[in-house]
């Protein structure tokens, strides 16, 4: 009975509406934050920072963005990566064209530009839904990447189309070591995740879910569909935009349209599906899963190749990845549409009863 809510009676609605009403959860989250901010930097290797932790965090942020739009507001989007690209390129231009602009301001402004573009591409959602909306966002994906590739102004007339990202300097400090970048990304992601949790647990989150579950009924109780949907597009694209800027500046080190292709949009969608549609926690779980699975598969394949008589070609790892993802997506869609986050809460439910089964 390590995990119980018994004896923890809520004496006020304030306590009841807290983000983590159960004490063990609060301890858990404090522990995770302590480990993430203090423990990890002490032990992690540069490879671990650059290849695993930083992309995991950045993609979690993008997944939160998509989850707000798709999981909460019910508007399917296949254009997340394009909105990330808008954030990255907008930040690049702010930094390149406005001398002395603080880096964080540039990232936030990049997010705002992405939000504005998100609103424009969200307009069709007022008329069409489901499959047709997905196709419209797919068009956004292709159009935006095409635009960024074809209009020389956005790449500052850079001939190759691949721009080296300016170094991240905040208050005179250069964030160029992997742990420094990691801590910066972690701070931004933690704060934005908290903000997302706040939005989704209150009135705004309920309005989004109301539109998702039954839009006519939502209108009838006074929720303006247009405003609420477009706000979801804006907030979601803001999150994707900031994630895109971080992706370029803290992960890739370059700003290039190709990094934000349809493939990335799908990976973010898979994170949401596998992690859990309509949960903030699920965005992290899904991201961890999608980032780690290929690494684990590749390591396994290499190990098997080296330590067993079977010869496995190096390409098997990436092929296996495609197969495993495909199977998992289908399995989750059929068996557990609420993803890892639901499995987690079922696990907690079991733990609550443990060791007594009834």
């Amino acid at each position, binding site marked *: 009975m390590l995990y119980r809510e018994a004896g923890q009676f809520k004496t006020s*609605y*304030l306590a*009841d*509406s807290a983000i983590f009403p159960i004490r063990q959860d609060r301890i858990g989250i404090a522990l995770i934050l302590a480990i993430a901010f203090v423990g990890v930097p002490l032990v992690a290797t540069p490879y671990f920072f650059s290849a695993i932790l930083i992309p995991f965090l950045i993609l979690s942020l993008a997944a939160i963005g998509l989850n707000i739009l798709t999981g909460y507001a019910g508007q399917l989007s296949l254009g997340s990566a394009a909105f990330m690209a808008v954030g990255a390129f907008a930040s690049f231009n702010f930094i390149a064209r406005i001398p002395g602009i603080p880096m964080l301001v540039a990232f936030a402004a990049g997010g705002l530009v992405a939000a504005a573009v998100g609103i424009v591409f969200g307009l069709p959602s007022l008329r069409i839904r489901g499959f047709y909306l997905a196709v419209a966002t797919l068009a956004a994906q292709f159009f935006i990447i095409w635009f960024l590739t074809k209009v020389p102004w956005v790449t500052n007339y850079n001939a190759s189309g691949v721009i080296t990202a300016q170094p991240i300097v905040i208050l005179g400090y250069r964030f160029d070591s992997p742990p420094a970048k990691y801590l910066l990304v972690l701070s931004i992601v933690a704060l934005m995740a908290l*903000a*997302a949790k*706040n*939005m989704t647990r*209150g*009135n*705004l989150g*309920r*309005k989004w*879910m*109301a539109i*998702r*579950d*039954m839009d*006519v*009924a*939502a*209108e*009838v*109780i*006074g*929720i*303006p*569909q247009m405003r609420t949907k477009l*706000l979801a597009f804006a*907030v979601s694209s803001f999150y994707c935009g900031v994630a895109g800027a971080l992706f370029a500046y803290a992960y890739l080190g370059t700003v290039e349209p190709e990094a934000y292709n349809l493939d990335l949009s799908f990976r973010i969608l898979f994170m949401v599906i596998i992690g859990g549609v*309509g949960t903030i926690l699920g965005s992290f779980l899904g991201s961890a899963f999608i980032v780690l699975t290929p690494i684990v598969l590749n390591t396994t394949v290499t190990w098997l190749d080296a330590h067993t008589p079977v010869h496995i070609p190096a390409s098997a790892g990436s092929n296996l990845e495609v197969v495993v993802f495909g199977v998992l997506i289908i399995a989750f869609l059929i068996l557990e549409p609420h993803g890892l986050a639901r499995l987690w809460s079922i696990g907690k439910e079991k733990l609550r009863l443990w060791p007594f089964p009834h």
Partner: protein
Amino acid sequence: MSEVAPVTATSRPSAPRASARTAGGVILAVDHISLAFGGVKALTDISFDVREHEIRAIIGPNGAGKSSMLNVINGVYRPQHGTITFRGVPRHDVNTHEAAAQGIARTFQNIALFKGMSVLDNIMTGRNLRMKATFVEQALWIGRARNEELANRHKVEEIIDFLEIQHIRRTPVGRLPYGLQKRVELARALAAEPVLLLLDEPMAGMNVEEKQDMCRFILDVNEQYGTTIVLIEHDMGVVMDISDRVVVLDYGKKIGDGVPADVRANQAVIDAYLGVAH
């Protein structure tokens, strides 16, 4: 859609309602409303009024246009002709969310709850118009965001107590039996503290006990909060028991209007219910 109950006396004594609540002036006037879907005339030149604090029933056979009438009143459908005057303001049509802002709430014939949300969240959603915090305040959980959440939670808990659904507060609505879902939908409508409450067959598909509970709730809402209620119901016993006045529709036309006893004695109404050819 439920069966049309025949016009017969009910098992329960159907004495005229004690008029403790005095109906006031006209709060809603429906004037010459006509609505058609392509060739289908759902409503033809319908006029009637609803007085403050009364319970006004709309009855009629399947397809008579009852639900369409409610949909016109709160803006889901736009009539081709006619005006709706609510609290003295005449209008041809209105946005549904504006109607909500003016104090009109409703329930649906086919339950329209938010399936992915808990009972508590569904009811809290009913209070969205009273929560003014901007999304920035909500993201930072400061100022109005926090205070409004708490203040409105108090009101919602009051409604939860009133409708006796404390035990299912945390349950996702999709898992509830039909009768309880109907009650939660009423709770969501009440959460808006409406001036005018439109109920589309609130008792359809319920067993006798659930129906009695629902009747009691409707009467209590009407008496305690003074809410004006327009109610569609097929169960004649219920209609005769709880309504002050009744409008009868048939094939989109109004064929009767008056106090329950008069309507029941009306030959056109009896014919409509017995299916006499037109």
